[in-house]
């Protein structure tokens, strides 16, 4: 009750603050530019049920499902500190999650999502080093910045649904890489054409000996082209050996497309293939159409994720979504969406979980940007 009242109070505060004008802190002192930006958001989630797989004391996997449930949480409090002097830039992105609970259950988490320094040699060459969100697909490098995407939750390739981990022969991992430590990037800027490239190195899993082995490093790259200002095509690749699931060499292949019709319609679609050395491939794809009508941005989306090695998702999960965003002001946005999940039947051995074939889910969020 206390938690709910605190969360409600938070939302009221967001609305009240939304009627005031506010802006990020920006200071310029000589050749130095300082900037502080950030956002806060809260999310309400309701789901009709959720399949679960548990392992009992005998090591046997059991099927089941969680009943209808809902939650209201303050999800993020994100601060971005930026300093720039001539060709050098330093960014620090701090994210505090779920830290508004009053029950002291320890779920609060403060993380430095990104800390990096960047040197710009010219438009074609930029060098960035630190802790960097790996550029893969349309959203991996901004996956925690909820004001930047139209939906409450990202597609499954970036954010697998809860309870994905069944504990054996599978890991709770996304289809996209996590973070990189060194990146080279640059742009070719034409009249109505733009080419962006990114090359990066990441840390893989440390060897059991505890040493930082070079063979465990991950390598990735992304190439994106923008044509006639409105049509974008991208390709992403990442490979790592002995990543967190220790299943040999892993290779991620991604393709994405974004089509814009003036500022009225946007179509996005992505596909990712996750190839393992010792496990069957996983693959996922989605498509989304968003309209921009005044302060509203309604959308429809289709999303599919398949993982043959995971007893839960062996059957494949399809998610149909419909929702909208509403810009209360430049600083406050409300989003609401409905998801219909369906597990498909496959010719392969039936999934372990047969407790449910469908899940209904509703999500709403309020975001305040500063």
């Amino acid at each position, binding site marked *: 009750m206390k938690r709910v009242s605190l969360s409600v109070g938070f939302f009221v505060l967001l609305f009240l603050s939304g009627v005031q004008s506010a802006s990020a802190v*920006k200071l310029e002192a000589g050749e130095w530019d300082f900037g502080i930006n*950030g956002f806060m958001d809260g999310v309400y989630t309701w789901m009709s049920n959720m399949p679960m797989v548990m392992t009992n004391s005998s090591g046997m996997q059991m099927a089941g499902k969680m009943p209808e449930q809902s939650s209201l949480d303050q999800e993020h409090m994100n601060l*971005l500190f930026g300093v720039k002097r001539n060709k050098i830039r330093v960014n620090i992105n701090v994210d505090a999650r779920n830290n508004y609970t009053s029950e002291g259950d320890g779920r609060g988490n403060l993380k430095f999502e*990104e800390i990096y320094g960047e040197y*710009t040699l010219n*438009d074609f060459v930029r060098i960035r080093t630190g802790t960097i969100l790996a550029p893969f697909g349309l959203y991996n490098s901004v996956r925690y910045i909820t*004001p*930047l995407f139209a939906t409450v939750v990202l597609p499954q390739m970036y954010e697998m649904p809860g309870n994905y981990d069944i504990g054996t022969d599978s890991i709770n991992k996304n289809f996209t890489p996590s973070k990189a430590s060194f990146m080279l990037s640059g742009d070719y800027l034409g009249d109505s054409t733009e080419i962006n490239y990114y090359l990066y190195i990441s840390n893989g899993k440390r060897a059991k000996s505890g040493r930082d082995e070079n063979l465990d490093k991950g390598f990735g790259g992304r190439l994106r082209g923008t044509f006639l*200002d409105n049509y974008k095509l991208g390709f992403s690749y990442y490979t790592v050996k002995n990543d967190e699931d220790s299943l040999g060499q892993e290779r991620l292949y991604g393709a994405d497309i974004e089509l814009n019709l003036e500022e009225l319609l946007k179509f996005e679609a992505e596909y990712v293939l996750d190839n393992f050395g010792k496990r069957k491939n996983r693959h996922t794809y989605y498509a989304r159409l968003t309209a921009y009508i005044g302060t509203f941005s309604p959308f429809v989306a289709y999303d599919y994720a398949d993982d043959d090695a995971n007893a839960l998702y062996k059957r494949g999960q399809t998610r149909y979504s419909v929702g909208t965003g509403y810009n209360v002001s*430049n600083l406050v946005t409300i989003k609401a969406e409905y998801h219909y999940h369906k597990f498909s039947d496959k010719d392969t051995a039936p999934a372990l979980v047969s407790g449910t074939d469908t899940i209904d889910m509703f999500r709403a969020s309020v975001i305040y940007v500063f």
Partner: protein
Amino acid sequence: MLKTAFMLFLLSVTFTGTSFGGFVVIVNKENPVSKIKKRDLKNIYRLKKTTWKSGLPIHPVNLKPEDSVREDFSKKIVKKTSQSMIKFYLKRALSGEGQAPETAKSEAEMFKIVSGNKGAVGYASRGDDSVKTVPVE
């Protein structure tokens, strides 16, 4: 007669430094640039192009969002409205890719900022002795 009028028109376009009417583009007097391509100007205000050919960091300056000259410049050069660009700059800032350009409260302040920063570029409804006007190609 028609030919003369056409030649006069061409000359006026060449020497006033703008093909678009409504605004002129200005840089610091010590900036060696003598003309600027429309695509470069667009990429400067989209925070994509950050250095001049000389290696000098570019410092773009905007007028206030409600200023009609800014709206005109934004539509003709960046191909977006001022309001769209406010959102664009906010997104760039949140993703750590750059801060919005400095905003001048008036054209007088615009001239002051540009004349005080070697890498600055801006625009106004007219030129000024303290800055250099450059034509847009």
